[in-house]
């Protein structure tokens, strides 16, 4: 047995620590994160034992820790290094072609520059087996509240500041990028349709209004109106 390796963090992890592992209920994006992770856990739980999975941009490696006993899951992140997380870049993955049957890319693409996004997608395509699946979650620059803001004020509401999300795009553009990288959309759903006013209230009181967040997603499941999109692609 080796001693647990020391952890090294850069980027947002250096500032905020393991914020995905130690979830704060009053984090304004917590309700969306919780809903997203429930879907990812369902997806991973349904995979056959020993399925080879890559969590690309895994952060602290929450899912790697959780599923490592049942799946052959690897985690890689450019801003994190830990016992089970290697530091690596999505635009140059250190794995041979066709090494994984499934790949996760959860809230990662928006952090990459416009130039790096197609590179990362083509790397994910390369390391997946033919017929393998890519599971992507990404925030949508043109969610409902942002569209309304654009109509009234002439500009969209960025999903985070430019330094954090340099690759912020309306969801349709991500779909085009994935298609051009050789992926075929299998399933798409949205989390959190951002109805103005209600959205502001939920962002202000995330812990108290998490039920309202869930109810909105059930009531208006229009992906293009949602803050977060969950997409499953097949590698052609």
């Amino acid at each position: 047995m080796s001693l647990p390796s020391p952890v090294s963090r850069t980027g947002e992890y250096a500032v905020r620590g393991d914020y995905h592992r130690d979830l704060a209920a009053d984090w304004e994006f917590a309700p969306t994160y919780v809903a997203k992770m429930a879907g990812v856990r369902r997806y991973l739980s349904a995979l056959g034992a020993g399925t080879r999975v890559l969590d690309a941009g895994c952060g602290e490696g929450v899912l790697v820790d959780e599923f490592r006993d049942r799946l052959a899951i690897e985690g890689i992140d450019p801003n994190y290094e830990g016992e089970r997380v290697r530091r690596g870049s999505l635009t140059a993955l250190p794995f041979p072609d066709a090494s994984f049957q499934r790949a996760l890319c959860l809230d990662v693409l928006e952090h990459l520059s416009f130039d790096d996004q197609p590179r990362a997608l083509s790397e994910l395509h390369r390391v997946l087996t033919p017929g393998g699946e890519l599971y992507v979650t990404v925030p949508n620059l043109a969610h409902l509240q942002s569209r309304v803001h654009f109509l009234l004020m002439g500009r969209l509401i960025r999903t985070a500041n430019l330094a954090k999300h340099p690759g912020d795009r309306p969801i349709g553009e991500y779909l085009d990028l994935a298609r051009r990288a050789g992926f075929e959309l299998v399933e798409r759903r949205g989390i959190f349709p951002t109805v103005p006013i209600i959205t502001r209230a939920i962002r202000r009181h995330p812990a108290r209004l998490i039920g309202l967040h869930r109810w909105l997603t059930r009531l208006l499941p229009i992906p293009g109106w949602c803050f977060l999109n969950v997409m499953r692609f097949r590698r052609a």
Partner: protein
Amino acid sequence: MAVDPALLEILVCPLCKTPVHVVHDGAGLKCDTCRRVYPVKDDIPVMLVDEASVED
């Protein structure tokens, strides 16, 4: 403990995709194609091109 052998079996150089092998008593992973050595810090390989050194 050195790098997990199961991981080592699948790791390749991020640049040329050649399998890497252990050098310097486990302190590095070397690619024979581009001669880059990726450091291993606390048993964790750092597979970043920018962090690698080129050795003969």
